[in-house]
């Protein structure tokens, strides 16, 4: 089949949305399909939205048998066989509207009108799709609530998951993702104050701004836990990541209210390692079941310390949870074969 993958982007900003497209392309091509990847530039400036959306309506991809759209507002594209793997809305006009900080425009008649128009246009475009998939229950709920459309959750798998495996269960809780405030590595550092076992913590990842890693460093020094916490503020290669996951006791991934479960939690699961997360982390709670393939605690350092200690003390538990984590992936169909089957149905 000739398949066009369409998404929006801001040039030179790379993120999860690009991975999902590029990995899917690789998998489709392996199956023998002809794939074209089309990235369209877009900025979420309120006054420029409708011009850009109109432009997208004029894009002709009729030479493709099927079109799969990802990031907004790619779903505006017209095609007789349009499939959406809907990652998120322009949230400032949807669930973040009530929040002054995130809305990005004043809550006045003009912008309420813009919001209404956007909802209508989105809904109409969504209805044109033959099938709508999302990357999480959270996003599906939002689609139903705001646009009245039904969708199927299709969890994005990780590329070449064979890279991840379990080698041993040492004494380290590992968290590999960007060092940013909303990823909340500081909660893990704070937890080290309350741990009673020699359990260690490894935090690695790059960051956009030096302020947050700086904060983490200060806190580590303050708490006097430098000997038990490793902080690596740099880009971690795929090999290094696979290594850390292979050897660690368990992993932690506890961002603040993220829609999707995040690749780190899936990678950890492929490496058969338990995942520590918190009640307000969002999409990752669709993957983690408390006491089964990890722990879900309130976001308090004290409670986090408790589960970290638990895993250190009871290695058998850590191992078993790791095995469950691997199984969980099949349970909720996080696999490329499932993805391809559903997208090409």
């Amino acid at each position, binding site marked *: 089949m000739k398949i066009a993958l369409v998404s929006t982007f801001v040039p030179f900003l790379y993120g999860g949305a690009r991975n999902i497209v590029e990995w899917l392309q690789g998998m489709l091509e392996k199956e023998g399909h002809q794939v074209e990847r089309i990235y369209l530039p877009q900025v979420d400036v309120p006054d420029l939205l409708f011009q850009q959306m*109109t432009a997208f309506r004029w894009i002709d991809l009729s030479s493709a048998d099927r079109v799969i759209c990802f990031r907004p507002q790619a779903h505006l594209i017209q095609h007789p066989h349009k499939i959406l793997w809907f990652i998120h809305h322009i949230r400032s006009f949807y669930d973040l509207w009530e929040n002054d900080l995130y809305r990005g425009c004043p809550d006045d008649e*003009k912008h*309420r009108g813009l919001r209404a128009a956007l909802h*209508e246009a989105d809904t109409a475009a969504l209805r044109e799709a033959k099938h709508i998939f999302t990357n999480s229950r959270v996003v599906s709920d939002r689609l139903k609530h705001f646009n009245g459309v039904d969708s199927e959750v299709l969890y994005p798998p990780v590329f070449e998951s064979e890279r991840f495996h379990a080698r041993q269960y040492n004494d380290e809780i590992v968290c590999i993702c960007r060092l940013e405030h909303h990823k909340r590595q500081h909660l893990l550092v704070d937890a080290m104050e309350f741990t009673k076992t020699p359990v260690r913590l490894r935090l690695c990842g790059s960051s956009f701004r030096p302020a947050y890693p700086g904060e983490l460093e200060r806190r580590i020094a303050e708490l006097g836990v430098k000997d038990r916490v490793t902080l690596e503020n740099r880009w971690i290669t795929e090999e290094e990541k696979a290594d850390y996951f292979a050897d660690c006791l368990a992993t932690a991934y506890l961002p603040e209210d993220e829609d999707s479960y995040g690749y780190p939690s899936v990678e950890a699961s492929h490496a058969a390692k338990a995942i520590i997360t918190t009640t307000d982390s969002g999409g990752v709670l669709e993957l983690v079941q408390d006491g089964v393939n990890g722990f879900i605690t309130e976001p308090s350092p004290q409670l986090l310390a408790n589960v970290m200690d638990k895993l250190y003390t009871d290695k058998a538990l850590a191992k078993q949870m790791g095995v469950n984590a691997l199984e969980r992936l099949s349970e909720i169909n996080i696999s490329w074969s499932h993805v391809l089957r559903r997208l090409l149905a």
Partner: protein
Amino acid sequence: MKLLIFTPGLKASAIGRMTCLVSNALIAQGHEVVIVRTEVNALLDRPSHDFNTRMISWSDEKQVLEATAECDVLVYQVGDNYDYHEGCVTWLARLPGVVCLHDFFVGHMFYAWAQKNMEKADSILKHWYGDEVAKRFFKFANNKAFIEGTKDQAPLTEWIASQALGVITHSRWGTPRVVRSCLGSVRVVPLAYDAPGESEVAQGYEPNKFGRMKLLTVGHINRNKRVADVIHAIAGSPLLRQNVVYRLVGAADPEMVIELSTLANSLRVNLVISGAVDDTELALAVGEADVMSCLRWPSLEAASASAIEAMLYGKAAVVTDTGFYSEIPDDCVEKISHEDEVADLRAVLERLYSKPSERVALGERARRWASSTYLAENYARQLVEESIACQKLRPIVTAKAYFVEVMKRWGATDDLLRADDTMSALAVMG
């Protein structure tokens, strides 16, 4: 809500008066209003209605743009008079907003506007009405021929409606053209109007005083008020000739005065031409009138302020059965068919003369109906509703305008602009 309302401001403008009522109602409902006076520069220093709120001039570009940035919606009061509405037409083309359409026929205003915008005007005529009509439009011999030749073929309703985010108008009869050309919604709302000093006016009234029936026509005396036909109607009945005094109050050209006086004299009809009078005098004239003649032909406006006034004053009114007047309940006014105007009118006037109690009852029904219909409070509320509905349309209209501008810069012809492929995509956006 913050509304920026474009309107003629001068006292002579009935539309200005109506806007004043609506503006006050809006403010009473908790909204903020800024007024933009839209008369030609020469008239901007005439005394205006008391709008009770900030007022700026349409020609002060900076102020208008600043006010636009601060408000939620623009409202344009549009009527068929370029001298009064130049500012509306100029700004409507630049900044979309809600149009309150007072006249379905805006041919006179278009004609005047076209003098400085001939190329655009030609293209507009061709676009809506075709090459044939466009060729003839500026070649009529006189005003009468112009109105005859354009009121049904090229009323230019579409020219205004197509620029609006939404339209409020005041009767149904002319709405098909509006609906066809307006991107947004169209709603019919009874015109806001009032009858100041209504109670005082009612006080002094004595029906058929001295056995005479006072018939009154108010307003600028021109042909479409059918004065000559009224005179003929009275003349055709000895009863009426003896007992009816027909008074004309309002400005009139000297030629018209002579023509009508001569006609009345020759037919021995009692005609009194008062000319223009002040408000007090006018109130007295209305107060003592038995019947008001509000005949019109052709009828091109969406609502008639004078007919509404007559009803609000509780007077028996005679109207032509067309346009806005047809939509008034049958038991509130006497409707005359235009085809049999003189005969119909004669019969109606005879009946009204002979049955004063019926007349009073008619007027009372009219007053009750009018006073609960033509409410500024209702108009204001609907204007706000329409404004909110339009906000949803604005992003699409703005996007479309962006693309049209680019196409025009690239030298696109009208045909290319209308091509299905390009513009139909906008249809999905709501």
